[in-house]
């Protein structure tokens, strides 16, 4: 087990290096120049050149790359020229809000998605199954920003039940968390459904039935754990995607997380912040995947054995 973790962490170092290099290139290939953005369209070339020098943008690309990597290892991404303080500091300020939102959305998605998937998959072709299948396809098809706006219209403006934006009370989190959770819930429900339906066709489920168990006992006692194996992997992967989805949701609901920070940073060519956020998310996704894989081995004793030998 420890060896597996160590190996994965070693691979992780290379993944992070790849992610860092990729973001370094993308940020620089993308049109727009931080100096021009900061100084405005009327700035004269001399001013721009001076700012380039200050920001180190006049140095050869490869030199910039090396010092970027060196700093990144120390989690130093330089100062945000827009915020006037270290990028990492700004990122860590915003990180808790995003994690809070992501965890809330994940909790909703896992609880609701698993329940729906379990009930639907337990009786494929049944009423619940057909309703859930149709609903999940719809949920996955709606764009997040649209769902967010609709929820604001109905629950905040129409029914006046919940605040439309901002932070402060637990109620503030309800709409953004639901918005973020809906497509994720659909994914978890669909996957659980097909996984459970498949498990229910396995001979060991017949064995369980031959013991005189009721269908719920068969479902929870035998089909569920085997069905969870693919679900856990996908939840781990999707949580990373969720942090990406949070960018949009946070902007719709004015949620002060990484999402609104990064959108602002991209618009203003704030390289330091973009790089810090991207690498941080890459790191989080990596850790989540590792956790999912370890959980996976806990669920399936057959894999546990192979890992140990």
């Amino acid at each position, binding site marked *: 087990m420890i060896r597996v973790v160590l190996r994965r962490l070693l691979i992780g170092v290379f993944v992070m290096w790849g992610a860092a290099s990729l973001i370094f290139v993308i940020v620089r290939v993308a049109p727009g120049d931080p100096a021009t953005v900061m100084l405005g369209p009327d700035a004269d070339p001399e001013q721009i050149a001076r700012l380039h020098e200050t920001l180190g943008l006049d140095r050869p690309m490869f030199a910039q790359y090396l010092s970027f990597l060196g700093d990144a290892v120390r989690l130093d991404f330089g100062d945000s020229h827009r915020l006037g303080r270290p990028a990492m500091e700004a990122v860590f300020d915003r990180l808790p809000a995003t994690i809070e939102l992501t965890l809330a959305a994940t909790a909703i998605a896992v609880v609701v998605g698993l329940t729906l998937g379990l009930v639907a998959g337990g009786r494929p072709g049944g009423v619940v199954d057909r309703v859930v299948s149709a609903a999940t396809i719809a949920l996955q098809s709606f764009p997040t920003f649209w769902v967010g706006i609709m929820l604001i219209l109905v629950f905040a403006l129409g029914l006046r039940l919940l605040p439309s934006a901002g932070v402060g009370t637990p109620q503030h989190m309800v709409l953004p968390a639901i918005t973020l959770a809906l497509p994720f819930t659909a994914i978890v429900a669909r996957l659980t459904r097909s996984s459970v339906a498949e498990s229910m066709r396995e001979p060991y489920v017949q064995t369980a039935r031959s013991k005189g168990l009721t269908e719920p*006992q068969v479902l929870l006692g035998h089909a569920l754990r085997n069905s969870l194996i693919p679900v856990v992997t996908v939840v781990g992967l999707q949580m990373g995607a969720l942090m990406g989805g949070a960018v949009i949701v946070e902007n719709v609901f004015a949620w002060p997380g990484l999402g609104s920070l990064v959108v602002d940073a991209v618009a203003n060519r704030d390289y330091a912040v973009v790089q810090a956020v991207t690498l941080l998310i890459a790191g989080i996704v990596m850790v989540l995947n590792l956790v999912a894989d370890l959980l996976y081995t806990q669920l399936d004793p057959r894999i546990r054995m192979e890992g140990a030998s």
Partner: protein
Amino acid sequence: MSDVRTARTGGAPVAQHEALLQVDGLTVDLPGTRGDVRVVDGVSFDVPAGTTVGLIGESGSGKTMTANAIIGLLPDGARTGGRLLWRGEDLLHADGARRRKARGHEISMIFQDPLAALNPTQRIGRQVGEILRRDGVGRAEVRRRVVELLDRAGVPDPAERANRYPHEFSGGLRQRAMIALALAGSPSLLLADEPTTALDVTVQARILTLLQTIQQDEGLSVLLVSHDLRVVANVASEVVVMYAGRVAERGPAPVVLRRPAHPYTKALVRSVPAVRTKTALADPLPGAPATPANRPAGCPFHPRCPIARDRCRTEVPAVREVAPGRAAACHFAEEVLAP
């Protein structure tokens, strides 16, 4: 085979009260793409208490569906008819709770592929003991009984093996664990659906011996479903031969297999390579088996039957008594029986 036993079981028709289970005109219809298909068509036979009955047939003959119908585990959408008299009580028309109560406690089942039939994510002991746990037996007692059951089923070092997972067992051990699992609820009837088909030949014999020992020690009844005539011939005292969803022939195993009354049984016996006789070459059964979905008119076996006549192509033969204690569905059974 002892002649005494042959004479006794073959001599008297099985009295009704002796039967633990009476399968009476059982039909099973499964939904197909072109309408329902009657995969079990009016099957009747008895399983007397404390005996092993062999249910033989090729794949598609309806033998597995018959067993599934008996334990009440048919696929969704299956419709059934006839009666399943369990100690005189019709289980087929009993409610779900009654049928569920019978499963495991009165009728249990072991399956063809023990690896697939055991839950890969649960320890063997947990699976074997589940029925006891659900019955409210205490932890320590469940544990003790699980070790005892595994030991009975011939699992070596049962206390240690109870903590292992199915994938850590060999094929033979898995089937032994499966047998322990099936015995946990102290059933009176054990349905064994091709219990040795997925196993190595050397292991097959040992599992069959185990089944036989357990059957005799516990006074169990066993319904042994198999396509393998040799398996059935070795352990069954009664045999039911199925073809295309119907009973072709039934009676005491030794006499039926030595002197079949149905051309299909005869062909089956001939198709088995005889190990001890000088003629090592077997006669393979010509043609493809009829399936319930495209059952020929008249006698379903007539396209493959060496003695088929015009009558066989039009008239469905009824299962009728052809000798004391024996029944066959052939218009010309007497001719087949004649030496």
